[in-house]
C-alpha cells in the first residue's frame, strides 16, 4: 500500500468536518428566515396602551422596524437604549410587539425607562409571533414600504448589527423611493 492511501481516511475526515461546518452554518441563516421577502402577516390584536383592535393597515409609517419585546426579556433591556437612540434621532419608526406579557407590567416598564415605539401590539398568546416565526425575544424585523419583510434579526439589536444588517437595506429602500 502506498503512502497516499494511508492518508486517505484523514483527508476524508477533514473534508467531512469542513463540509459539515459550512453546510450547517449556512443552514442556520437559511432556515430561520423563511419569511424574508414575504408579506408581513395580517393580524387583528389589541394595542398595548388601550383596548383598540389594530390590524396590519395601522402600521402606517413604512419602512419601519417591528421589535419583539417583553418585560420578562432581559436582553430587551440591553437593546432598549439603542432603540431610544433610533427613535430620538428619527432614523426610523419602530413598532413594538409585546410578546406573551402582562399588560400592566409592560406599560409600567415603558413609563419607567421610556417608550421607543410608535405603538405596541399586545400579543398575549403569541399569535402574531407564531405567524412571524418568532421563537423568543428580542427579535427585530425591517418592513419595507410595501409591507414586505426585508431583514430579520434574532437577538439583541446593537449598533454593529444595525450597520451590518439593517442600514444598507434601509438606505437602498430610501434610494429606490426617490
Amino acid at each position, binding site marked *: 500500500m502506498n503512502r497516499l*492511501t494511508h492518508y486517505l481516511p484523514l483527508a476524508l475526515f477533514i473534508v467531512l468536518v469542513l463540509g459539515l461546518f459550512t453546510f450547517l452554518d449556512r443552514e442556520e441563516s437559511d432556515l430561520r428566515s*423563511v419569511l424574508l421577502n414575504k408579506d408581513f402577516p395580517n393580524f387583528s390584536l389589541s394595542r398595548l396602551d388601550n383596548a383598540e383592535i389594530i390590524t396590519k393597515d395601522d402600521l402606517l409609517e413604512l419602512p419601519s422596524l417591528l421589535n419583539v419585546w417583553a418585560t420578562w426579556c432581559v436582553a430587551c433591556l440591553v437593546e432598549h437604549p439603542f432603540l431610544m437612540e433610533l427613535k430620538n434621532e428619527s432614523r426610523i419608526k419602530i413598532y413594538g410587539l409585546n410578546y*406573551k406579557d402582562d399588560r400592566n407590567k409592560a406599560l409600567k416598564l415603558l413609563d419607567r425607562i421610556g417608550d421607543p415605539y410608535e405603538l405596541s401590539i399586545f400579543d398575549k398568546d*403569541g399569535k402574531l409571533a*407564531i405567524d412571524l416565526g418568532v421563537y423568543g425575544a428580542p427579535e427585530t424585523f425591517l418592513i419595507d414600504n410595501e409591507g414586505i419583510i426585508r431583514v430579520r434579526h434574532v437577538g439583541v439589536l446593537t449598533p454593529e448589527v444595525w450597520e451590518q444588517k439593517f442600514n444598507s437595506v434601509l438606505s437602498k429602500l430610501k434610494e429606490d423611493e426617490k
Partner: protein
Amino acid sequence: MKNKLFISILFIFSLSLQSETTKEIYSFANDVDQERFYTLVDTYRCPKCQSSNLAGSNAPIAKDLKREIHRLIEEGKTDEQIEVFLSSRYGDFILYKPAIRKNTLILWIGPFALFLLIILFVVRWNITSKRQPKDLEAENIVKAIERTRLKKLVEDE
C-alpha cells in the same frame, strides 16, 4: 418510625402527581384526533430548544405551537396542512424529516455515499493486504535465487 416513612412516601408521590397536573391538557372530539395530536407533537422539533421535540419541551413557544396544533386539528385541518402551517413559519428547522430538495440532498444521500465509500475502501484494503504475503513469497524466491547465484560467483572466483 414506620408512620413517618409512610407519610414521606405519600408526600413524594403527591409531589409527582402535582407536577403531572400542571401539564396542559387538550381535549379532542374523538380518540383519532387525540392520537394525531400526540403523533404531531412528537414529530416536530421545538424551535427554541434545538434538541427536543414539541412534546418534550416546556418552552413558551412549544406550548404555543401545541396550542396551535390543537386548534388546527379541531378546525379539521389535515396533517399535511398542519405541516405547511408550521414549516411556512419556522422553516425546515422544525422538521426532523426534511423534504427532499436541492439543499437537503446532502442530508439524504450523504450518509449512504459515505457508507459506500467506506465499504469500497475496506474492500480495496483487504485485497491489497491479501496480495502482500504472496508478493513477499515471490520476493523471497527471487532473493534466494540471487543468493545462490552470488554464492556461485564467489566460489568461482
